[in-house]
């Protein structure tokens, strides 16, 4: 195993361990399937910068080409501010990919882990 591959595996393992014990405000993560990371690419329709949670609303297309509205729940704005989020970090019209843990009840709702901007740059939403 070369060093690069080892580092990649190490990073993935570390990421999994970190992701498995997130510290969320207000309510626990019981309603989300915290074992599977889901990625959804789409267009931002609204960014709610609010407490107890901030929300990103994204319009995406499913496998059949139907438009689906996704909601990504985040931590409180105080905690997000401490990890480089701002009220205009994402704006309506932005093309982004949201990565998170989907609601167990099957709704198109997720607990956000990170986003990727159109240029590939990523921003973590972990505040723990």
């Amino acid at each position: 195993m070369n060093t690069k591959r080892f580092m990649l595996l190490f990073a993935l393992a570390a990421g999994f361990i970190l992701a498995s014990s997130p510290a969320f405000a207000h309510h626990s993560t019981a309603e989300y399937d915290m074992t599977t990371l889901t990625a959804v690419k789409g267009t931002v329709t609204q960014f709610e910068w609010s407490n107890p949670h901030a929300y990103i609303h994204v319009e995406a297309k499913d496998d059949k080409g139907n438009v689906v509205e996704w909601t990504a729940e985040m931590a409180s704005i105080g905690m997000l501010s401490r990890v480089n989020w701002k009220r205009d970090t994402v704006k309506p019209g932005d093309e982004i990919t949201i990565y998170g843990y989907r609601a167990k009840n099957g709704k198109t709702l997720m607990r956000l882990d990170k986003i990727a901007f159109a240029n590939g740059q990523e921003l973590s939403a972990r505040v723990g």
Partner: protein
Amino acid sequence: MRNRWKASILGVAALLLVLPAIFGQAANPSKATGAPDLTGVWLIDHFQPALFPKGTTPPFTPWGEAQFKKADTQVNDPNLACLPHGIPRLMFVPLPMEIFQVPDRVLMYQEAGNQLRQIHMNRDHKKDLDPTYNGDSVGKWEGGTLVVDTIGFNDVTWLDHAGLPHTESLHVVERIHRVDHTTLVDDFTIEDPKAYTKPWAASQTYHLKPGWEIAEYVCDNNKYVYHEK
């Protein structure tokens, strides 16, 4: 002339000796009284949504167990309605708190709901307390430990994020101490004979967050968690 110089030097030296005491007292009265210093912004080191993790069983009374079975974190968690967390749950919330020490009180300014928790240092519990979310907290120093005794609760809140119930008979004792400069520990003893057959313990560690300020936190947008879409 020489004596005048000597007097001036002595005067300045005396002033220099006294100044830190004056300003130190103004900045932090507890230091002047020799009390330990717990001031600063603190954040939990890890989130414990359930004080009894899977595989462990709380010492429920039949009533306590029945209440716990009714608890649903997505439906009837009082916090979903933006109600205060209450004690001890407030101390397990993954949001920072700033501790202040002023004469006769230790104050905990919690980012969660921007609540100010008051611990009264030089009085006993008041008689015939009105039941409240955070109860009536009185504290005393035992060496480097702040021992806080709280009673006078209403029965609206949960003890943790998983739904541990309690009644107005809840009694919480906390032993809060600084392990080192950047680490604070709160050891809890929780008893409520109507909900639990015996007292039980919990603990939370906090890390100092230099440079952090408590942010505004108004719980004003719960439509997705409290109201069904």
